[in-house]
């Protein structure tokens, strides 16, 4: 037992990711943690999406299962697992069977390099961002094969749409990413593709890349932010599964567990591209206002925010517990909500303990930024009407792609300006 505690303490002292340290035990722990956290995030996202969309449309949303519908995602999951698993008679059985697994594998594998903190990543690869883009582009294979293997018209049209859409927007996305990679090479001379390296470059340059070379960083961020919605097939670019035209697009013929795999993959892909955007432009795990509000006092204040956030959520729970109907039928629900609030409050209090506070702050800021993007996704869905397919292609090829190319050239020019200027002065002087 003592050895185990020593082992854990030794690891906590080191400042390496388990992958870089070649530590199999901690790598496994991190993989399980990331996988579990991701599944919880998808469940939470399911509930939040339904609730927020409902409130945007002045509805109540799920209210029946658990207090304020908190247990609705669990009920949905049980329903999906118990549903009959249907494979169409004329479907290509093997391909139909493999397709959801391709999508899920691609969506989950990318989290190997997502940096939740300087040491909180499963591993750090020298080709991190390339790996993320490459593996997430594999998910389109799953969608295409799913649509084809169903041997039905709607899925096939959905699959064709999605492959055209994802291949088109990958180009603009890649160009925006390249402009950031160029920025990482500014002070040191050598850039990096590693996810942790990109955040550390923002730390050493004292500037998030969204503000770099204003407005170039901002434009790059906008190109990526539009392309990533198209990449994940979400509204207003959700043509592959446009329910009013194609019933459900490429996964029309899927049911039960296989359908839920597509669902899981869609949401974890959303989290994955959001974490790319956070890492590349929004400073990854760095806390906000590092220049304006610096110093030990502000560091302390910002390190208290994670705990305070959880206490705030707990307070909301208690407030709503007090507002629950006083009918005896609601007794269990009221107690459940109070218990949920108590758990949240306990987590919040745990986060005030100094060693926990130091280790958890970076994960909190990263997750908070990603959560902001998740809210944006829901907001888009509640706000924008769906694009027509030719409009979608026009935005991708005629607006985003030229903008991306111009951005690349401009970023290179601005980055080279100081260097060229110094060279020119050196040449004129003799």
């Amino acid at each position, binding site marked *: 037992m003592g050895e185990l505690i020593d082992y854990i303490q*030794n*690891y906590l002292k*080191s400042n*390496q990711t388990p992958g*870089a*340290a*070649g*530590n199999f035990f901690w790598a496994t722990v991190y993989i399980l943690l990331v996988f579990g956290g991701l599944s919880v995030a998808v469940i939470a996202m399911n509930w939040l999406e339904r609730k927020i969309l409902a409130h945007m449309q002045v509805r109540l949303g799920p209210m029946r299962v658990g207090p304020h519908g908190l247990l609705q995602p669990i009920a949905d999951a049980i329903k999906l697992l118990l549903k009959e698993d249907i494979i169409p008679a004329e479907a*290509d059985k*093997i*391909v139909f069977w*493999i397709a959801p697994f391709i999508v899920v594998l691609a969506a989950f594998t990318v989290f190997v390099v997502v940096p939740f903190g300087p040491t909180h990543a499963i591993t750090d*690869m*020298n*080709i991190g961002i*390339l*790996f993320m*883009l*490459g*593996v997430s*582009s*594999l998910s*389109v*294979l799953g969608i*295409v*094969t799913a*649509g*084809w*293997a169903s041997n039905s018209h709607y899925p*096939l049209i959905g*699959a*064709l749409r999605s*492959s*055209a859409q*994802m*291949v088109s927007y*990958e180009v603009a996305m890649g160009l925006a990413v390249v402009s950031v990679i160029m920025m990482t090479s500014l002070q040191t001379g*050598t850039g990096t*593709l*590693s996810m942790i390296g990109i955040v550390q470059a923002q730390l050493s340059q004292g500037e998030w890349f969204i503000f770099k070379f204003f407005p170039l960083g901002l434009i790059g961020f906008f190109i990526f932010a539009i392309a990533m919605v198209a990449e994940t097939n979400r509204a207003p670019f959700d043509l592959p599964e446009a329910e009013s035209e194609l019933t459900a697009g490429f996964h029309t013929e899927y049911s039960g567990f296989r359908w839920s795999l597509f669902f899981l993959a869609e949401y974890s892909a959303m989290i994955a591209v959001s974490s790319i955007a956070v890492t590349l432009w929004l400073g990854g795990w760095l806390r906000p206002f590092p220049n304006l509000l610096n110093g030990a006092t502000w560091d302390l204040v910002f390190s208290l925010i994670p705990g305070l956030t959880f206490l705030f959520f707990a307070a909301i729970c208690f407030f709503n517990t007090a507002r629950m109907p006083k009918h005896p039928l609601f007794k269990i629900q009221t107690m459940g909500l109070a218990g949920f609030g108590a758990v949240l409050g306990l987590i919040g209090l745990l986060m005030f303990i100094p060693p926990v506070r130091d280790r958890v702050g970076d994960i909190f800021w990263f997750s908070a930024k990603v959560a902001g993007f998740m809210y944006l996704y829901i907001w888009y869905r509640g706000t924008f009407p769906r694009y027509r397919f030719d409009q979608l292609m026009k935005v991708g090829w005629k607006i985003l792609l030229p903008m991306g190319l111009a951005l690349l050239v401009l970023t290179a020019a601005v980055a080279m300006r100081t260097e060229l200027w110094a060279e020119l002065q050196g040449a004129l002087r003799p």
Partner: protein
Amino acid sequence: MIPPGTNPPVATPFFFYLLAATMIIGGILVITRKNAVHSAMALITALLAQAGLYLMLYAPFVAGVQIILYAGGIMVLFLFVIMLINLERNMKERQFNKQWLVGIAAAAALGGLFIAVYTTTTRGKALFPEGRMTYFESQNTQAIATLLFDRSAGQYMFAFEIASLLLLVAIIGAVVMAKKRI
């Protein structure tokens, strides 16, 4: 805590044989499947295994580009085109290109060439060398950039630009052929 540098190497014979077997099986499936979509999926498997082989050669950048370009880009377009073809009729049609004699001859010639190159270059050496110079993983991308673009050490700049120009010509040609009026 294992210090860095003493990690067990990834490039073990087990992984090599695993990836090579995957590639060969994938390659055989590509030419034996009648259904074009199955062939394409077997080809994707083979290409991914090839990316794994690049990783074993300490070339992570090439492996990443392999995944993005071949598995993620080109094969998606392959599948896209295959889906637009009516497969049902093609599968029932009798294959009329009986060229297996020429095929075997070509394959034997290529295999002979490989064996000849292999035996002349590895004469008197073990199949898996015990020690060889390994590059730091973190230098591979930078090394490729130096070879391509560096002012003094860059040798392949011209070839690289010519290749990209060729691709541009192909893109413009495709657009011109597909759309008469732009």
